[in-house]
Each structure stands twice: as C-alpha cells, then as structure tokens.
C-alpha cells in the first residue's frame, strides 16, 4: 500500500468517535447518518463530518437507497493497514537478527 494511504487511514482512525462509527457499521451493517447519530448519541452533523473523513480515507463508502444515503465499511483499506503493520514487523525481524549477528561479531572481536 502507498505510505500516504496508510497515513490517511491511521489519521482517520485516530479519532475515538470515528472508531465508534466503524464499530457501529460493523455491528449493524449499512446505516444512514441519522441512524448512526441516534446509535452513538452525537449530532447528525458530527456523524456526517466523521463519515466524510472516513470516506476520504477509503474506509467507508456510501450508496443511495431511495432518499436515504447508506454508509458501509469498505474492508480493503483496513486489510491494507494490517499489511502495513505486518511489513513493519517483518522489518524488525530482519533488524533484530542483524543486531544479534552484530553483537555476536563484536563480542568475538572484543
């Protein structure tokens, strides 16, 4: 995944209310901003703002059903964010192995 994308995702998820929105969407499935606002006890305007930030990061998508706009989770970016963290972990595996070899070599020399 592109670094900019990872940054957008982590920034979007840095906000506790936005994490609540994601959780509510994962529990209830596609929901309107009005339904989410009622569920989370925040104003509809606040939910709309968070939904637009989440949509910008690619974490939710909106579909129109009649007069209603329904929001749902787009799982791909979350999977991408998990892969990005996995990549960080793999880098540390390499570095720690190199650290072990480096210390072994210096201890032998010393």
């Amino acid at each position, binding site marked *: 995944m*592109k*670094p*900019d994308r*990872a*940054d*957008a995702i*982590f*920034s979007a*998820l*840095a*906000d*506790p209310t936005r*994490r609540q929105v*994601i*959780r509510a969407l*994962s529990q209830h499935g596609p929901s309107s901003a009005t339904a989410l606002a009622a569920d989370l006890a925040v104003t509809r305007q606040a939910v709309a703002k968070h939904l637009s930030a989440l949509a910008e990061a690619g974490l939710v998508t909106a579909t129109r059903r009649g007069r209603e706009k329904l929001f749902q989770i787009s799982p791909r970016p*979350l999977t991408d*964010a*998990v892969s990005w*963290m996995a990549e*960080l*972990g793999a*880098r*540390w*595996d*390499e*570095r*720690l*192995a*190199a*650290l*072990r*070899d*480096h*210390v*072994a070599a*210096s*201890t032998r020399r*010393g």
Partner: protein
Amino acid sequence: MDVVEREILIAAPPGLVWPALAHADGLSAWFGADARVDLQPGGRGVFRWPDGAERPVVVEDVEPARRLAFRWLPFQRTAGGDVVALPSTRVLITLDEVPGGTRVRVVEQPAFSLGAGAPRAGGRASAMIAS
C-alpha cells in the same frame, strides 16, 4: 493492527548489547540504514537507507543498558526525492537481562495510540476499533 511487538534473545549481557543502540555508528551496523542521530532525549536525526530514502526521528527516552525510545516523524523523503506522508510511530526498544543473555524487545505503534481514547498497549485491531 495498532501495535508491532517483536523480541529476540541475544547471548550477551545488556552491557554488551547497549553499544549497538547507544551510538549512531552502532545503530548503523544493524539497522539497515545509516543513522545520523543525536542519541539523547530530545535529540534529532535522520536514518538514511542505501537507496537514498530518508526518515527523520526524534529521540524520546534513553536509559543506558535498559531502554531506547524514538518517534518516527510523519513523513519520509523517498529515494526519488519526493516527500510522502507516513503514520508517525513510536519505537521502544528495551533490554532485559535473562538467563543466557539479553532479551531485546521492540514495540512499534502509531504515535496517536498514546493519546486520549487510545487502546491499551498490546491491544489488537479489534480493541482499537472497539475502544
């Protein structure tokens, strides 16, 4: 997805592992990047990879033979010279004396995890979303 934890056992006491963390040339020997870092709390610096990519850091905590903590700043200069945004993460490296040597433990997590409403250290993706 909010935290990376890794550890390794090194067959040497912490006092012999520490020089590889305490100095920029020690770090450069194993990090995979050339470290130009002022290794004291508040110290700044940059890691430069062999392809020319660079990422700045700020050192947050240093306790000799025990702990090194630094924070990657939220951008990187790519090999091609572009500046791209990256999540700012904190790295904590701890050394623990154990039978047989030193356990080196690394925890890396997005810097915002330490803020309000953050998951507990060691939490997982579900905990992060549920918090």
